[in-house]
């Protein structure tokens, strides 16, 4: 065995430092490529035409049955839910019992109220996935953002990370509370090439299911083909790096509860530089500085031992 002397130790730590620096550089390049990912090429999506929705709540019922969710508080043909508000006057949001909800918006100058269905938007680069430290989330090539409830530890970081406030929490389960959200019917439909239950159930054809790239083309054709009908913006085409669910509206998006200040950068872009340093700091620094410490105190330790010898 090679004797560990001062010279060998310094050589070794230098080599280690260079390796760590290279690794960090590589990690940075890899995550930069991740920022330009833009989604799987043939991933599916849903185009929502908000001008068509009449607020019948059939999609909510379809989701409840397809996902085997608990009985709702009120029947799905009870429209008094549109008058319900959470604290602060906010409209209804997704819960552990409802992965999708429809809300009503009164818009000045519009003859009828506007109805907007909310559910997971299935981001190309999901913030929930980025934030999850047990790796419970997966973005599938079909476009769905799914999660493994068996590994979820219920930390709720994804609920804070999600720019759309989508993941809900099973507060009703005191033993094993986990996060709950729309999975685009991945298990029962999407992976077999079928549209989500809400899309199929809609009587008004509000939602169009198809390849995301085709839907983007279709949406822009619709905007151009109907001058004055739609706001010239496809919500979800670029927001937070693009989402599988995209929206067309005849009312400015900020008036109907959409966050229009999210920017085009995926959430991961804001944290990747920092996150790349974390493994380096956690793994290399303790070993490196312990080494320096031992080295600097060795002489002293030797001196303390020598009188006995």
């Amino acid at each position: 065995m090679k004797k560990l002397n001062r010279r060998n130790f310094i050589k070794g730590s230098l080599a280690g430092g260079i390796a760590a620096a290279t690794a960090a550089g590589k990690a940075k390049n890899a995550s930069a490529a991740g920022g330009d990912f833009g989604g799987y090429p043939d991933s599916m999506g849903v185009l929502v035409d908000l001008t068509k929705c009449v607020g019948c709540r059939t999609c909510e019922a379809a989701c409840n049955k397809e996902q085997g969710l608990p009985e709702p508080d009120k029947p799905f043909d009870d429209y008094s839910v549109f008058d319900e508000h959470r604290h602060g006057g906010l409209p209804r949001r997704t819960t552990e019992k409802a992965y999708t909800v429809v809300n009503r918006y009164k818009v000045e100058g519009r003859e009828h109220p506007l109805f907007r269905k909310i559910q997971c938007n299935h981001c190309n680069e999901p913030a929930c996935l980025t934030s999850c430290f047990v790796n419970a989330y997966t973005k599938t090539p079909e476009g769905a953002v799914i999660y493994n409830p068996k590994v979820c530890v219920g930390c709720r970081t994804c609920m804070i990370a999600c720019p759309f406030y989508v993941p809900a929490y099973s507060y009703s389960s005191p033993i094993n509370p986990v996060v709950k959200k729309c999975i685009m019917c991945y298990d029962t439909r999407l992976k077999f090439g079928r549209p989500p239950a809400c899309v199929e159930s809609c009587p008004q054809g509000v939602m169009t299911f198809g390849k995301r790239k085709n839907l983007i083309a279709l949406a822009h054709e619709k905007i151009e083909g109907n001058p004055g009908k739609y706001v010239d913006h496809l919500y979800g085409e670029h927001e937070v790096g693009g989402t599988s669910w995209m929206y067309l509206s005849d009312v400015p998006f900020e008036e109907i509860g959409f966050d229009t200040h999210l920017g085009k950068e995926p959430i991961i872009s804001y944290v990747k530089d920092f996150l790349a340093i974390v493994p380096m700091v956690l793994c290399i620094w303790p070993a490196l500085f312990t080494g320096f410490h031992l080295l600097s105190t060795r002489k002293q330790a030797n001196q303390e031992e020598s009188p006995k010898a």
Partner: protein
Amino acid sequence: MGFKKEKRLGLAAFIAMAAPLVLPISAKGEVFELSSLANLYEGVSFDHDMHIEAVENNCSLCHHHTAGTPPEDQTCIPCHKNSPEAESPACSSCHLIEPFSSTNLSISEKNPLRHHKVKPGLKAAFHLNCMGCHQETGGPVGCQDCHAMTEKGEKFYNTGQYTPKAGNETAHH
């Protein structure tokens, strides 16, 4: 002999069941049942004659460019200004029951005709066509104004005999 009779009966039953799908083709002056999609709701008893009167014989208001009358929709006019009556002007001959099945998606993806590429499914076509007009003309717009909910529908919507019992509400929203 008995077998033959059964077979004949079966054929008659088949024709009777298929009739609502076939009849609309020559449906002037008739009331027929739109029931090919009946599931959560019963079929709609559709008075074709009354609707012909309501639109003053302008078939294109509903049938786009397939009824032989000049099309109203701006997107149809460039190609179908003088199109004759289609082989079948029934809604279901163009609007699919399952527009988003993978087979139908790949067919429509290859369709070179821009305005035929994406068309509403049959259920959406019915509702968009009917409701748009009904809202303007004061026709029925509530779900059960046109078709009664079936027992399966009550279960689906958790309503009627399946209404949730009070006291099950969760505090978190």
